[in-house]
């Protein structure tokens, strides 16, 4: 392996997945052996509505390059309405991040059902690709967290 290839940019990506649909979708992707880059790490939350904007900013602060939130499809929320609130919150938050100049591709919401292992894997592949093209997150990182 050449040195160049070794230093290829490997983004840090945090995926918040709701327990009922998307986490199960990720499980299905796993049991179907549908691969996606190891850069994606999943945090299980009960519902997409549990994701606080502060969690997202915290991830960026600590050096994440992309954050994706996955939940049940609108109308299918285990808690009936959680993802509707999540949708509004994230729309506004993403718009604000975009407004202050953070690249809009770094954040994403995707609805993935428990049956959509294929979609989960495809989404993650796509998202990682997008983050790789955007490069390292420098606009929302706390410099103190850089491991030097």
């Amino acid at each position, binding site marked *: 392996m050449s040195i160049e290839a070794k230093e290829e940019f490997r983004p840090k990506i945090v995926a918040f997945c709701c327990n009922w649909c998307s986490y199960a979708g990720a499980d299905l992707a796993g049991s179907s052996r549908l691969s996606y880059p190891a850069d994606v790490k999943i945090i299980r939350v009960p519902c997409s509505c549990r994701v606080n904007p502060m969690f997202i900013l915290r991830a960026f602060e*600590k*050096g994440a390059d992309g954050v994706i939130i996955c939940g049940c499809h609108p109308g299918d929320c285990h808690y009936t309405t959680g993802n509707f609130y999540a949708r509004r919150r994230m729309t506004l938050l993403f718009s604000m991040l975009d407004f202050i100049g953070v690249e809009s591709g770094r954040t994403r919401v995707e609805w993935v059902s428990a049956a959509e292992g294929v979609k989960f894997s495809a989404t993650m592949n796509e998202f990682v690709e997008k983050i790789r093209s955007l490069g390292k997150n420098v606009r929302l990182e706390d410099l*103190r*967290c850089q*491991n030097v």
Partner: protein
Amino acid sequence: MYKIAKKDLPALFRRIAAGKELYLPLENGGQVNFGVWDEGGSVSLDTLKTVKSPKDAFFPQSETLYTCRRDGKNLSVDPEALQEQEFVLFGVKACDVRGFEILDQVFLADPVDTFYEARRAHATIVSLACHEPEETCFCNVFDIDCAAPAGDVASWSIGETLYWKPLTQKGEALTEAVKDLLAQAQEEPVESEKNSIRAIVEKLPYSHLSLEGWGGGALEEAFDSPLWEELYKPCLACGTCTFVCPTCQCYDIKDYDTGHGVQRYRCWDSCMYSDFTMMAHGNNRTSQMQRFRQRFMHKLVYFPANNDGIYSCVGCGRCVEKCPSALHIVKVIKTFAEASKSKHTGGEQP
């Protein structure tokens, strides 16, 4: 006494900045604050008051004390290096120079604050007389002469010329380093400028503010005064007054988790904040009245009580300008002085 044409100031700055870090009042988005100058920096020596005082140069709003790094279960601790680079603070007003002396009382007293000490030792202060003092100024109440500022070099901005007078050895050294840019000058224009400044100071609304009722001896009386209960009410409990103040010196020490260790840093704190001096059991000042009282008692009673009568206010008037509720030290001083006067002249107790 030396002088330099104002148009040549960039050359002077460049010269100083070549060997040392140079702090100047810089304009950013309509606001002027001290900052490290570089080519292209928008210098504003005409601004009477920077938003923040220049105390950041010695006591930054936030500074790392040491860094712990974690490697498995092993920890290593790296103390933050002390200031080693020489730097020049240019354009400091008389009140702010006095502000440094007050901070010295705190940080250079035993136990010495080494971070502060190192910065003080490496700094040369070029002060600047206040050409046009404003209605919020009351430095002369604390015997500060804004026409003849202290510092290592004093300067006066008169017309198109900056007059320059070294006052200390450090000042002489700096003068030596830039001497080819300076020309010899007469004292006379400076003297006349001083007179004109002092004449304006006489006319300032707060110039004759009475400090009656204050000072180290007023402890119990002032502390128990019912006036606080009335005074504090509009206070929003923000930290604006403390953060723009040249003499506020309280700080908090906090840890930041960097993911691979901890950075211990200190940052300015404000006695106006509800978590100021928070301890495990809670807070010893539970109401905003108590927090409000603390700030003024500290500046006007406790500090003079412990520092030979020196008040820890320099009359810069920044808080007077910036308080969102138009509530500030002048209001407090006056209210107490009036109450004290009426009491001593047999007037009604407030």
